[in-house]
């Protein structure tokens, strides 16, 4: 075995920062290699955009999940569609966290990277994404390149990277791939997949099957060459690397499915019996419709790409009004455009499910990056009093099941239900127990029998605000629906009492729904010094941080809210059992010590705003908008800070 020349020697000891060490449990030796047996490991594949690192990462993550590992993947997506090659801004790829138990978040720092050039590696280094003792497998063609500018860039990068204790292993990716394909750029990803699969002991049969599925629509020769590249990568790793990493599978042998959040939403919509999806392409929500486009019609569904966001909402509302079960999919900017139509659905009490896959920033913002900044807009974005339901799945699995729940609530309460997902869930891949779809999820079609004599389209029950939905074409069910305030018969309301009455009915429905909710479960003890409250995709990171803090003896617990409107019952009482309450969110909040910031003018995290208003509890917050998911280690440090624990994180 020949070990490639390394820019540094063996992996240096990890710093005492709590970051996972790739070699922390290095032990037995097999076939002349050191086998590191670990309970979790984070690996990245990073390349220029278009070199296929994302495909490589997805296959690696999926195969790992199928082999029984806990997995959470995060896409590394450049902000631009075609960024310049060999630029830090163009870094594209996939980050996979493997575990011996369920993995609920992307973890802290990357332990092993395979990079297609030194510039994309530099981007990850500068982003602070890499553990200081990370092992780096780096395409080495650039250090011998003819272009002196590239050589200069290489040298500068090596110098900058030298500030860390990375173990950098050169990999002749170009040279190896050219043995199989004419254009190495179209082969490096499968070669890299082979290298990683050899390191982590991935099942070759599963890999070959995954590659075949990936290229199923292309010529068989394409598949054959990609498998050959895979094998070449595996052989190279076996012949040139002195280590292997073993992350044992979880003990859970139950049947699992592996998918990302957008796939889960698409499949959940089908399982829920939704019949029409209307959308306009927008990152990071578009892939929901991509998945639906492939299979929705097989289940009787209709996918409609409208001419714009507003029309997409209009089509869904119209379909629902006429008796179909419909939803629309969008992201923040699209939500802004749909605002008026959401008000129409609320006023006409037309059931509608709206999926908002949040991205970063206002306006165009950060289309490919994660943020949780649409909460207040989702809750209060409509002019006038427009009560509706907002719920947020916290896991990929919940993305699936939230569609079943959203449809049922929308129809039962004749209202709009917004499902707040985010880019972290949308592109993250996680295995979860295979759902067993039930006929009840799909419900029965709306009753289209004759309307009872005397029944009215808005026969608001004085206690619950609920009324029976009429469908056009139903005998005796014809009525005119407009956005105008209306009475029980859908006649335009000129009597001021009518608006008061109808507003009360629409509002009352939320209270009725809340009466069926249970207080959210507490992770940890039911009382203590600090309660961390979260919502959406931060759940896994928060709970892992709480677990670490509790292992240190800190009195901290967490709870996670699925319903944001209405909020679940019992929060005030729950908060009262803790010395402090703090939200952790991926949206912006002012730092209390910043210039000009006072307790009165401080803009807080969006959930913190809501909880303070609803519970009158002095809820604190810690938020970040770093265009990436929160790390459990960062939250752990904040918990320690809030509880005034001195000393670094162990």
């Amino acid at each position, binding site marked *: 075995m020949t070990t490639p020349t390394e820019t540094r020697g063996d992996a240096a000891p990890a710093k005492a920062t709590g970051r996972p060490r790739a070699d922390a449990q290095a032990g037995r030796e097999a076939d002349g290699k050191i086998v590191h047996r670990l309970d979790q490991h984070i690996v990245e594949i990073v390349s220029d955009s278009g070199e296929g690192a994302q495909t490589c990462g997805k296959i690696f993550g999926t195969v790992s999940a199928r082999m029984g590992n806990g997995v959470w993947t995060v896409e590394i997506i450049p902000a631009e569609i075609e960024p310049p090659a060999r630029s830090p801004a163009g870094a594209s790829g996939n980050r996979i966290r493997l575990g011996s138990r369920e993995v609920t978040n992307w973890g802290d720092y990357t332990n092993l990277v395979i990079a297609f050039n030194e510039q994309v590696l530099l981007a990850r280094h500068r982003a602070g994404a890499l553990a200081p003792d990370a092992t780096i497998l780096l395409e080495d063609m650039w250090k011998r390149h003819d272009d002196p500018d590239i050589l200069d860039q290489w040298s500068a990068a090596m110098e900058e990277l030298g500030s860390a204790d990375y173990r950098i292993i050169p990999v002749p990716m170009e040279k190896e791939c050219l043995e199989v394909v004419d254009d190495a750029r179209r082969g490096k990803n499968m070669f890299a997949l082979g290298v990683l699969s050899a390191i982590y002991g991935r099942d070759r049969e599963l890999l070959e099957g995954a590659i075949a599925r990936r290229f199923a629509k292309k010529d068989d020769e394409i598949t054959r060459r990609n498998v050959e590249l895979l094998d070449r990568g595996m052989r190279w790793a076996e012949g040139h690397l002195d280590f292997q990493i073993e992350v044992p599978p979880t003990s859970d042998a139950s049947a699992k499915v592996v998918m990302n959040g957008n796939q889960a939403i698409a499949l959940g919509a089908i399982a829920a019996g939704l019949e029409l999806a209307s959308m306009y392409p927008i990152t990071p929500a578009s892939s929901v419709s991509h998945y639906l486009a492939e299979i929705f019609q097989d289940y009787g569904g209709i996918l409609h790409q409208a001419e714009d966001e507003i029309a997409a909402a209009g089509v869904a509302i119209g379909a629902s009004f006429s008796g179909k079960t419909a939803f629309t999919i969008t992201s923040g900017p699209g939500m802004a455009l749909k605002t008026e139509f959401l008000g129409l659905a609320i006023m006409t009490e037309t059931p509608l499910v709206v999926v908002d896959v949040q991205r970063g920033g206002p306006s165009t913002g950060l289309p490919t990056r994660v943020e949780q900044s649409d909460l207040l807009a989702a809750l209060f974005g409509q002019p006038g009093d427009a009560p509706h339901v907002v719920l947020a799945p916290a896991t990929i699995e919940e993305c699936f099941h939230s569609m*079943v729940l959203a449809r049922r609530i929308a129809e039962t309460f004749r209202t709009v239900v917004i499902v707040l997902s985010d880019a972290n869930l949308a592109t993250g891949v996680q295995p979860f127990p295979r759902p067993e779809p039930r006929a009840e999820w799909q419900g029965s079609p709306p009753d289209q029998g004759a309307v009872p004599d005397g029944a009215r389209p808005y026969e608001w029950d004085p206690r619950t605000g609920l009324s029976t939905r009429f469908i056009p074409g139903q005998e005796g069910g014809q009525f005119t629906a407009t956005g105008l305030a209306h009475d029980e018969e859908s006649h335009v309301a000129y009597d001021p009492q009518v608006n008061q009455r109808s507003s009360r009915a629409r509002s009352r429905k939320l209270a009725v729904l809340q009466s069926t909710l249970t207080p959210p479960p507490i992770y940890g003890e039911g009382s203590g010094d600090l309660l961390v409250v979260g919502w959406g995709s931060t759940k896994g990171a928060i709970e892992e941080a709480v677990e670490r803090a509790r292992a240190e003896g800190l009195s901290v617990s967490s709870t996670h809210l699925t319903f944001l409107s209405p909020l679940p019952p019992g929060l005030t009482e729950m908060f009262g059992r803790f010395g402090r309450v703090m939200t952790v969110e991926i949206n912006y909040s002012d730092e209390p010590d910043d210039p000009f910031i006072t307790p009165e003018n401080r803009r807080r995290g969006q959930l913190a705003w809501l909880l303070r208003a609803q519970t009158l509890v002095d809820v604190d917050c810690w938020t970040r908008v770093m265009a990436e998911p929160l790390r459990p280690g960062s939250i752990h440090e904040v918990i320690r800070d809030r509880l005034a624990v001195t000393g670094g994180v162990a």
Partner: protein
Amino acid sequence: MPSEQRVDLVLSALQGSLEGFRSAVARAVDEVRAELERRRQPAGVPPDPQALGALASRIMDPGRFAGLFAEDSLLDPEAYALLEQAHEALASLDAADDRMFVESIPEGASLRDAVEAGLGRLGVAFGAARVAELAREGRHRTNGHAGHLSHFPPPSWNRAERGLAPPLVVETPGATLRAGALAEFLDGAQKLVLVVQGAAPPAPLVRLITPGVLVVQTKEPEELGRLADFEGPAVAALFPEGSGAACFTHDPSAGTGLAERMAVEELPEVSDLRPVGAISAAQQAEELAQLASLSRVGAAAPAAPSTNGHAASGGGDSARPADRLAAWLLRQANLRDLG
């Protein structure tokens, strides 16, 4: 003309009032029937805890969800039974013929009690509607409200119900005709017609003349048609042809002055009077004297504002500007509907 035939003629004359009440009853029957239908099935989607999916089992109480709808849409058996009884009572009134508006009094019975019984029987329409509403909202008391379905007399009626008051035709022996006791019923749009049989005092209804009440004594059934057109309370007595009864009309819509409102067509001689039942000749003479007096005073009296909201139209020459203004103000205030 036989009494029964006269009653038919009276009912025919009152057809407008009858139809107004019947229409209200029919609407109530439809509404309560629809409510019964709705309460058999829950509003919206039938609750099925499984339909909420796996996520709900962690954050919701599916049983409470289902129970909420059962509780909301499906009335408890007691309330549902009460709603059914209300529907039955209304449907019974709806199906009855016009004879339900007739009450017959035996000799010696109380006219007042008979009128209250008759109106209480017809007033079940209002009582049933009230019970249906209370049952629908879960505010019913079975013991307290079931009685509304058999007897719901005028003192229990609200303003709106008094505006829809059913007309009542009372076949009464002349000897029981103590009309003064009827004053308490003359409110809203109540119409009372007494079909008098046998000997009777000549001017009993004089005691009921007040500015807003239409009072008619006549021997011609067709004269009673004006009761159906009059919006306020009215009372009439139809005497047999050839009887010695006075014939007169006090019509508030005819003008603001007593002279305009009073029209006396026939005034019998005092010397002919004899006791009728317990009604003495002196009492009858007093009523006749009052009628004569009103007729004379009316002719000389200045116009006064009408309290039923109908200003004089033909009496404009004699009405002073101040009176017309007062009448207009009263109309705007809609005092007739108060109470």
